[in-house]
């Protein structure tokens, strides 16, 4: 019996994703001059949220199967 690793991974990237995507939405567009005008924070944040959803979804499905 172990802690399902997908839970902490999903939680961490969920929180990180919210933080980055939120910061991306609220920050001054001028800070993205360095990244060629692309809002890299928002896109990376969204990517993390999708990844977190997959991890948490997988953990939820397998915990349902086991009980």
């Amino acid at each position, binding site marked *: *019996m*172990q*802690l399902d*690793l997908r839970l*902490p*991974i999903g*939680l*961490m*990237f969920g*929180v*990180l994703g919210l*933080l*980055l995507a939120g*910061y*991306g939405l609220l*920050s001054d567009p001028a*800070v*993205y001059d*360095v*990244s*060629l005008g*692309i809002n*890299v*924070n928002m*896109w*990376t944040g969204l*990517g*993390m949220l999708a*990844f977190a959803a997959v991890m948490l979804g997988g953990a939820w499905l397998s915990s349902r199967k086991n009980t």
Partner: protein
Amino acid sequence: MRSNMHLHGVDYAIIALYFAFVLGIGAALKRFMKTSLDFFESGRSLAAWITGLAFISANLGAQEVIGMAASGAKYGIMTSHFYWVGAIPAMIFVGVFMMPFYYGSRAHSVPEYLRLRFDEKTRALNAVSFAVMTLFSSGISMYVMGRLFQLLLGWDINVSIVVAAVVVLVYILLGGLTSSIYNEVLQFFLIVFGFLPLVFVGLLNAGGWTGLQARLSTVATDAGYAAGAWTQSWQHMGSPAANPMGVEWFGMAMGLGFVLSFGYWCTDFLVIQRAMAARSMNAARLTPLLAAIPKMFFPFLVILPGMIAIAILPKTAFVFNGATDYNMAMPLMLQKFYPPGLLGLGLTALVASFMSGMAGNVTAFNTVWTYDIYKPYLRHNGTDAHYMWMGRMATVFGTLASVATAYVAMQFGNIMDLLQLVFSFINAPLFATFLLGMFWARATANGAFWGLISGTLAASVHYLLTGVGAAGLSTFHAYPSDMAQNFWGAIWAWSACFVVTIVISLATTPRRSEELKGLVYSLTPRIRDGGQAWYKRPAVLAVVVGVLTILLNIYFW
């Protein structure tokens, strides 16, 4: 560095979040640490994807992230040989052919396998040298981390070292090997999310792969090489003078691709320990094979940023205190392309790889210390709880020794270079011993022991008798580069070990075949994995990984 990076609140928030989760995972794992099996081997209960990602992450310390980007700037796409030649073939081999003996023998560690297969003295030699080397690499990695953050961010080096040591210590004490493995998986994903946007934006800036090729051809011709020297991995390996690494294809394929790579991936307990924590024989065998899939694409994540850096930044950007330092390629790229937010994420990925590199070394050390040194030689009849306590003590000692090493490295850089050289002499012959041990039942304990000693001697003698360039010490032979000398030294060491082991084995009495069951290929029943789904069969995965690697080599030929 002329201007330090400036971090914003959001960057600190990301770093803080990472620390909170790392310690949180340790705390959540505490209740699962009931026996020494849980603490040292994760109860042999982990899924293959977890041990697989840990398998490559344990090796992917930040030194590698920084160093691979540096080599990308210095040598170009040829650096990918460290992956497509110097890692994947060995990972396939260990998964398909060697894991059955490591996992199946029920040994706790790689040195313990040597005791089962050969004898006590061979194990002692391997265990002691491994334990010492592990602590040193952990200490050196701490020192490199402290210095990097001092240079980049102006953080105090003492604070960096102590904070990293305390966090690693706490999470290993709480969750043992599982903590270390879970954090390695976390680090893997942090590296992917932290560096993928950098590669994307960097490539866009350089005009895609074709734009990058055009810019790098100028870099190559300026340095006096053919235009494709930075973007073609094999075409310029006919002679060492034609490529910036100064190595020819044979030395590369045999020295790196065979001796060094198989010696590391197939015998180093740091990585093998991850596979041995898997929940079944099949999962253990799948561990390196699953690991090979992301591993083969890592060059795009860690080497490409270095190539982009040398292509788009002026040469003066790499000059620090009057000397060119390509190790700054990755940090320079982060600074150039990352806004607040992603900058914090990129740095967190670096912090994570430093810490998990240390944690990997400390967990490998505490296991080898407890099972291969303390238990056989100091206290044989302890209870399980006693050995678990000893594992925790070894964790504390290992962390303290790493910190001490970091400070020694800070004061005496030359001693560290010398030690790393000696370690390379010790490691070079190892694969010959394991190869003969696992696949030749006639190999004897005395053969293995003296073979190892001869291999190390051969490597030392080779080093003393050869030099690099015109400035060789005592030059029976001058190699065109350090790398060529290193690769050829490994080839000599391996060959000496191989030959001496065979000769002495033939002259000594072999063990009876019944005693070698499960330890030697010809005396062990074959594993049938026909019952598994096709994608869970090691052989199928090995072929897929092998073909993909060959295609990558051809594409970047």
